[in-house]
């Protein structure tokens, strides 16, 4: 399970219309992008965590996503610590290169911003099945073929992973030990016996899929209908209103307090 895997549960968040969830994400992203204040972004993360709890999203499912955020964030802290132009609070030096507190705080702020954005993703992906999401995107007047490509890509992701693992195992059974190879050998020799069959298997599967899709009248020149009802209900309006008020409040606070773009850290003191 990962943050893109749909969890088939019946929770208040699962019951929301995908359009509502898209709207909520848009609100939270706007609030996050409009501020560089750690507090604002921490509040967004907490808000998302409340939604996770309502959606019964297990933390285990977030492991990969949080790992990526932590890895990228740590890189940001290190890079910004050494290369941040403004500020003069030197914490330590490495080979004569100063590591500045302002840079580290800026990197850390970026990490929390990334976290606040990433935290919103599972609220859509882990609580929405592909077909209602596709219906919602079509309702937003996205071309259906584009929507279908998106849906198929979502479906293919775990399939590719599964085939990759099977091929990896098949080659290990022939003594192919990619783990023990150095990086150069891995690139020149290691991946070839895995990626060639992977590519050929996927080509065959997609060719079969093409026949199956055509056989189910895909592309018929009629106005497509949808099984999923994408009309908004009372709960959708309530969820949108709450999130909108929440995001608008954060946005207004950021603007009022002067915590907008260009500022770092907690907003005031370090920004100057």
């Amino acid at each position, binding site marked *: 399970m990962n943050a893109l895997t749909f969890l088939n549960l019946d929770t208040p968040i699962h019951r929301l219309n995908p359009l509502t969830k898209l709207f909520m994400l848009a609100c939270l992203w706007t609030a996050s992008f409009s501020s560089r204040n750690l507090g604002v972004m921490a509040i967004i993360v907490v808000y998302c965590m409340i939604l996770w709890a309502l959606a019964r999203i297990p933390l285990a499912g977030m492991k990969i996503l949080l790992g990526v955020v932590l890895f990228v964030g740590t890189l940001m802290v290190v890079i910004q610590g050494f290369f941040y132009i403004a500020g003069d609070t030197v914490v330590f030096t490495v080979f004569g290169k100063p590591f500045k507190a302002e840079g580290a705080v800026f990197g850390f702020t970026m990490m929390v911003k990334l976290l606040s954005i990433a935290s919103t993703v599972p609220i859509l992906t882990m609580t929405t099945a592909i077909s209602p999401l596709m219906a919602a995107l079509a309702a937003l007047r996205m071309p259906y073929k584009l929507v279908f490509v998106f849906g198929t890509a979502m479906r293919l992701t775990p399939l590719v992973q599964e085939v990759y693992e099977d091929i990896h195992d098949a080659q290990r059974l022939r003594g192919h030990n990619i783990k023990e190879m150095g990086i150069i050998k891995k690139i020149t020799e290691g991946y070839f016996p895995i990626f060639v*069959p992977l590519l050929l298997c996927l080509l065959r599967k997609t060719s079969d899929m093409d026949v199956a899709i055509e056989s189910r009248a895909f592309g018929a020149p009629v106005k497509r209908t*949808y099984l999923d009802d994408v009309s908004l209900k009372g709960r959708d309006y309530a969820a949108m209103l709450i999130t909108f008020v929440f995001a608008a409040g954060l946005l207004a606070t950021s603007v009022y307090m002067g915590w907008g773009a260009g500022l770092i850290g907690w907003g005031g003191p370090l920004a100057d």
Partner: protein
Amino acid sequence: MTEKAAQIPVSVKNVTYTYPEQDAPAIRDVELDVKEGEYLVIMGPNGAGKTTLCLLLNGVIPSVLGGKMRGWAEVYGLDARRHHVYELAQYVGMVLQDPEAQLFTSNVRSEAAFAAENLGVPREEMIERIDWALEVVRLQDFADRAPTQLSGGQKQRLAIAAALVMRPSVMVLDEPTSQLDPIGAGEVFSVLHDLNQDVGITVVLTTHKSEHATRYADRIVVLDQGQIVAQGSPSEVFSEVELMDRIHVQVPAVTRVEWDLKEALGKDRFSVVLEDTQASLSGLLDKRGHTKQQAADHRPPPPTPPELDTPYIELKDVSFVYPGTDKKALDGVSLAVEKGEFVGIIGQNGAGKTTLVKHVIGLLKPTEGQVVVDGRDMVDETVERMAQWVGLVLQNPDEQLFAMSVAEEVAFGCTNLGLPEEEVAERVDHALEATGLEPFRDVYPFNLSFGDRRKLSVAAVVAMEPEVLIFDEPTTGQDHKGRRELADIGKRLNEMGRTVLMVTHDMDLIAEYTKRLIVMGEARVLMDGPTEEVFQQVEILAQTYISPPQVTQLALSLGEYGIPGNILLVDDLYQVLKSEVGV
């Protein structure tokens, strides 16, 4: 629609079709009328043109795949060349071999809805159609499940439902059960039987499973090298035993028994189902003065596992739970295998067979218990190192082939073992010879037939000269000839002293090739003993949805005439009957 079109919904006239970039036609001069309400089974060896004919029936050929077509195909009065697939799809529903490749959405209900959505069916009517289709295929209780959570048989039934929502009059199914275990295949055949009998849908189906074909088909068409070589009722077709043998189509065991006894039975048209043959033979035995004995159960008690002094493979109370699940895939499994044995492993899907053999090579490590191979505790061993002692041939050869020639492909494993060049060359020669691939050593692997690609995957393992060779479902997608060729390779290697384990759903192969049989069910070993003794335990086998080979069932059903129940081969039963009946 004309009256003729209603009676003959699908008509193929003198069609020859060649795929793009191919020289030889896949089907030649094919003439076929499918009658309304008919259950038509198309049989033939791999490469005979069965899939091509199916794709022609719903218009995918030629309008999607292109190629050159001569002749004429008509679906409900519509010319297949001039009408798009979506038009024909409303008359002809299609189900493919690989269940994974035809399910694209996140739950059963939306999968069933896909075709109706494409056709712009109003939502209320769509819901009605979906409910009906899911009920027909008995998946109404699974509507909110993800397709990935379904078993193989359920996935194929879902693919049938996904086609049924278009309310087609004809269902075309291309080897829908080739990747399923006996229970999954039984579910699919049973649903198709109901659709044909109760709903009146015309069924066109390709399969290698002659026992299923004979039970349900009104008519069988046999293809070979792209041409129809026989057609008629199952009895008419399979009575041509010599022709079927020549083109490698499996004749049902009961038909072959009657064919062997044709003079004594005075027949030239033979039965194709067990009950009819049983009646014929009972009549013959009665006529020859064999009286029925007191109904007594002569079957031996369930066998006990052999006691081995020097086991090469040993599993000691092994349990295994896949990460992210809480159900045991193996539950307290203990068994031992000695060097030089040929052991069959059977059981329904999910019984734990593949999980078991993956422990023997170290792909999986036990959650509890211990696996020891040649004195090595598998917890401390890597797969890459174990590959020199244990070879596992996986189901799908295409998941490992990557080299530019057959010889290079076979050499890959030996090179990984760090062997000197001369020895690698020697082993490659030997492996190609053992698998009959010597003439293809410079051929690009993907230019080989599917059967030869399977042999290549075996050769790639054989070249590493492992002490133990494990075949995991070697018969999947294989015709009668291909199945036997692979089992013959296993037999030859076993005669050369190798230990062979064969996981399969093919009871005829198990009966013919293995001396010892392990039956898995619900993650446990249900039985372990000599093959002939295991196959007499019909009730225990039924727990894991397995029936003994048809010839054993026939022998067991004639038990009251004193026919022993431990018969595994047609020839053995013939010899017994010959001595009993005096033919």
